[in-house]
């Protein structure tokens, strides 16, 4: 994936991410009403409008605090390009995959 590829201009979506408290693993809020979490961006819930993302984010933060499951919960922008979910910011692309300098590590290693 070209990290600075901005050639596509599809509408931005939002997803919600955090680090799992116990081991620090990067996780994403899963689709559905139960506030589950998944480890891969491909399985994450996507939000088309900011209001829905804000509502889900508030619920996710409350759950993270109540259950002490996750830390540093926040929403980020992404696009779907050629069927691939691509975070807008380089930082989020690296979090979703792993270090660009060690493609044998991180989530990309199991892809």
């Amino acid at each position: 994936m070209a990290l600075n590829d901005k050639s596509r201009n599809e509408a931005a979506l939002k997803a919600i991410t955090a680090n799992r408290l116990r081991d620090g693993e990067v996780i994403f809020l899963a689709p559905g009403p139960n506030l589950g979490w998944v480890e891969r961006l491909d399985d994450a819930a996507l939000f088309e409008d900011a209001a829905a993302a804000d509502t889900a984010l508030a619920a996710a933060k409350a759950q993270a605090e109540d259950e002490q499951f996750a830390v540093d919960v926040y929403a980020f922008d992404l696009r779907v390009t050629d069927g691939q979910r691509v975070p807008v910011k380089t930082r989020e692309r690296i979090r979703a995959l792993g270090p660009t300098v060690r493609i044998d590590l991180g989530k990309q290693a199991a892809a």
Partner: protein
Amino acid sequence: MNHIAPGRNAGVYSYDDIDRRFVTERVEQFRAQVERRLSGELTEDEFKPLRLMNGLYLQLHAYMLRIAVPYGVLTARQLRKLAEIGRKYDKGYGHFTTRQNLQFNWIKLEDTPAILHELAEVDMHALQTSGNCVRNVTTDQFVGAARDEVVDGRVYAEILRQWTTLHPEFTFLPRKFKIAIMGSDADRAAIRVHDVGVFAKRNERGEVGFTFYVGGGLGRSPFIGKLIRDWVPEEDFVAYLEAILRVYNQYGRRDNIYKARIKILVHELGQEKFTQEVEEEFARLRGPKYRLAPEVVDEIRRRFGGPAFETLTDEPESFQAAKAANPDFARWVAVNVLAHKVPGYAAATISLKPAGGIPGDATSEQMELIADLADAHSFGELRVSHAQNLVLAHVRQDALFTLWTALEANGLGTPNAGLIGDIIACPGLDYCALANARSIPLAQAISARFADPARQQTIGELGIKISGCINACGHHHVGAIGILGVDKKGEEFYQITVGGDPTLTTAIGDILGPAVTADETVDAIEAIVEVYLSNRHDGERFIDTLKRVGHGPFKERVYAAH
């Protein structure tokens, strides 16, 4: 009970039972804190300062644990333990930093107490590797070995470690606090870009004293440390530092994190007023309570032990023959080997910067190999340099070829210490939660571009330093060529500075021109080098040519296509 006997691992401070009990109690304290966090008794806001006090950060992919390597000195046994932790709890490697520490990037919170327990077994810890306290005191990687050394800085760095650890006044300073100490006339520890930089020296009577520079630092606002005292007698070493820290603790800003470092205080108060405040505090403090007694210094020095050097002569025949027969070995000796204070010995830099490699990374297997080599050739001790390399400080010259052969066979024989391939780079956006841009890929691309050892040697001394954000962990301000990653609307750009200098002639680099893309950066470095080579006089270093001809020719060439 494990005990590292002086002499066996000469040059490494030996813990006593009090040291060991203290570290063990801290591990158990943190274990309880982790359990309370995982059970929900502690919130993240409550827990975060506690984990940071134990060197545990949350980075992009996982927790990062920064382990203290006091003044960069390690035993082979300790390095083996780090290798084991890397294999057991991380992903088989560790990263040596510009603070002479080691950090692991893929740590689980739930494993951290076990890791700290294992570290304590070899007299190691992660205390004061984070938080607003006095951080790991750094020094010359050739301490105790360099031919130009006047005073052994390890002794005073260890005194500072003991004095500052859990010091009640200095556990919650306005910001982190970094001290570096040198015991030579040279500067291999970037003294004047630290909060406090200390030169240890001797007067005409042979007595030890210290020169203090205060208020240096890099980051958002780079400053060169100001001389505030040329001679502090040994017995006042602790009192004078205490006075500096008290003035900082009293006047340092706590309302704005960006203005909280002592460099801002010194800048805003002015050198004269700051010095006056310190001198007044020093006059109040000076007395029996803060006097550093000679017997205390002697006891600390004794606990370091000393290598059992043999009586040898320099340049033994076998060493000369090996150099004559093997040009690659001769090049490594010329570049990576430093003269030792004891005839027949040498200090060897093990480069962690292979062409195209990640600066400062070492695999668990490499760490174990280096530990074995330290045992075989350097009295079981080694050092981490602030340039992210390792050093075997006491190698017999007639063993250098054997050492080099083993290093070379394992990708550790790169002859680039101090050359263009010896790039300092912070972890950058590949790992760090604060970074704006990646640092490592640029370091890899530049070192690959300049992979040819002969070309590197022709270019000569030229430090490239790369930071992925304004916090300047990669020391870009003091790189002969500095590179700063910046984010421009989601894209990585790189700002180039030239003329930085971390040595005795400390200088902050100047921005050459507008930031460029990653691909353009590598070409820009090549262009800068070409301008240098075509303009330099015989034997002239890059920074000297730059001073003589000015920025013009470099800027013109780099931005010719823009």
